[in-house]
């Protein structure tokens, strides 16, 4: 073994570094934001440029209820993390369960909306530029909801089986960061698709 660069310095200095889980999730969120920005730009760029119908005004309705569900799930996942931090494992399961439920309602509402659009309004991704940008932007967000729900369900499963302890708070927090991000993206998507685009 060769020399090692050990330079004596005051041992009292505390050497604290950020959590790598949270840093990595922040990076991922940054990258994902860039992807969403491009899809949003494409959506905004193509507003009103479709050469044929149907138009957003004709077929889109404001998804108020499902939006409230999704946004409130941000609160419940936050409570779940707090509960786990305080070692209240029962409460943690409860909040996680509620989060999964709210996310599920949102996803079901999206599915119902798409069914309506495809089978009643005749709008598919092939129909026109509105269809192209609408399904891809909302679909990209819905994909993220699906991934988030899968992870949350896993966490719920672990929690119900008693495998989740306060040692795992940081991991659950990382997951909750992702979920907050998915919710925040929905606010942008909602504003762009249902407010600006209509």
């Amino acid at each position: 073994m060769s020399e090692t660069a050990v330079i004596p310095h005051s041992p009292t200095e505390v050497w604290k570094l950020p959590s790598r889980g949270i840093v990595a999730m922040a990076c991922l969120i940054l990258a994902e934001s860039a992807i969403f920005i491009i899809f949003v730009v494409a959506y905004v760029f193509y507003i009103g440029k479709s050469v044929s119908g149907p138009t957003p005004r004709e077929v889109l309705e404001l998804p108020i209820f499902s939006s409230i569900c999704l946004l409130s799930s941000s609160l419940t996942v936050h409570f779940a993390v707090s509960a786990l931090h305080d070692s209240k494992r029962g409460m943690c399961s409860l909040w996680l369960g509620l989060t999964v439920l709210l996310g599920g309602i949102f996803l079901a509402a999206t599915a119902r909306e798409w069914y309506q659009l495809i089978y009643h309004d005749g709008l598919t991704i092939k129909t026109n530029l509105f269809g192209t940008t609408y399904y891809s932007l909302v679909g990209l967000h819905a994909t993220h909801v699906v991934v988030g729900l899968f992870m949350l369900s896993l966490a719920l499963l672990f929690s119900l089986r008693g495998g989740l302890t306060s040692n795992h708070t940081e991991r659950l927090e990382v997951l909750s960061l992702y979920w907050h991000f998915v919710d925040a993206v929905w606010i942008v998507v909602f504003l762009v698709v249902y407010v600006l685009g209509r």
Partner: protein
Amino acid sequence: MATQTPVTAILDKTPASPPRRLLFQVLHDWLTTLDHKKIGLMYIVYALIFLVIGGLEAVLMRIQLAIPNNHFVSPETFNRLFTMHGTTMVFFVGMPILFGFGNYLIPLMIGARDMAFPRLNAFSFWISAFGGTLLYFSYVGGSGLYGAGSAPDVGWFAYAPLTAHVFSPGHSTDYWTLAVLLSGVGTVGTAVNIVATTLCMRCPGMKLSRMPLLVWLYLITSFMVFVTISPLTAAQIMLMLDRYVGSHFFDTQAGGSAVLWMHFFWIFGHPEVYILVLPAFAFANEIIPVFSRKAIFGYPAMAAASVCIGFISLSVWAHHMFTVGMGPGANTFFTLSTMIISVPTGIKIFNWLATLWGGKIQFTTAMLFAIGFLFQFLIAGLTGIMLSVSPFNWQLSASYFVIAHFHYVLVGAILFMIFSAFYYWYPKITGRMLNERLGKWHFWLFLIGFHLTFDFMHIPGLLGMPRRVYTYEADRGWMMWNMIVSSGAIVQTAGTLLFVFNMVRSYFKGAIAGADPWDAWTLEWSTTSPPPEYNFAVTPSVASRRPLWDLKHPEDPDGNYE
């Protein structure tokens, strides 16, 4: 007859030479490894393989263009060659080789035992490698079941609507977009890893302001990856939707916009150049000081200039689009932003000069390549300024002048610095020195070949020769210049072969390097060559930017001056 066994032999559990392992075991070891050094090496080897393939494609193109109306390859083949050459060199040579060095060096330089997420690291490598394989599989599967297949021929920036099904039937473009998408996923994965490693795994005392500049620049590069590779990923998703499910993002018949693709591509494409060149700067920041025997001049300015480059590079993309009719307002804005980026870039060049100033410069092969880098990067920057002048750009864009300019950056600056990095860190990686005599031959051959090719390549551009033509008219006066350019390609090939030979030969016969052959100052030189799997037996702690300087000069440690 009983013999006495010495105590030390009993204690030392490691046999002097480990038993020869089966090939399968070695292979299994590499395929399943999570060690950042092995993953880094795999990145580098994989990139070198693609470098040879991409280089071969370039040579074929240069043979075709050496004389006008040549029939060496068909137009279709030529179009595939330049598409594959560009895609290969950017996505499957440039990115992996730079990330390979990053993977290998960053944990060693910050005194860590591995990257923050070893599994993610392996995943990122294998997904990128899969992307590269997929790209070349298009030669077999590009036409689906109908024929022998063909590679994509849409150009490396694949302008819409050439990529639409109407103009690119078959599957070759699908392979292209999938390959680029996968490489992007791998790249983002590695970038996440690099950021998490540098922010969360530094050894005690290694504040951000004490990190080696190489680590700083990799950190900035990684942040740029998040905000620039992702738009490309998004654009590739859109292109795939267009091609697979019939959406209309870039379908001009249905009101889609070809210009939108250009914007999306170049929002990635231009910062990508900086993503590739910042690691080259990073190598220069380590190598130039060591062989000048001086600390880097203006460490904070160097870090700050790199951050500036990172930010400004996000606002210059449309200088690739001065001829698409954006109007005078946009042209003026992107002219200004592009010119401004030359300021922080200039700061870096001046700081390197100041580092050399007053030093005692040792002309090792690594240093020769670094000096070549400085000289060529200066010229590349100046031709870059010419191209930023948008009216001049209306003449020069998409001509051979542009090809010469960006090869000056990619080969003259980046590849030279990569060669320099090989000569500098090869001893650390293998434990043996690269042969300096062969190295100098390699340097001079490659330098001459480079200048023959890329100096003279500017001229046909000024004489009106556009890029991506498989042949040209005989009466335009381009032939002599193309002939010189093509002959330079042969000289560069010879230089590169010498380098490969040197690498292989030195691996078996090179002089033993020892831990610190260059009398350098950063932490990677404090451990053995090659480093053990755990990097450092004891986690080091540092008190300055140059911990090994402090160790060698305890009477005058660096910490006093920071």
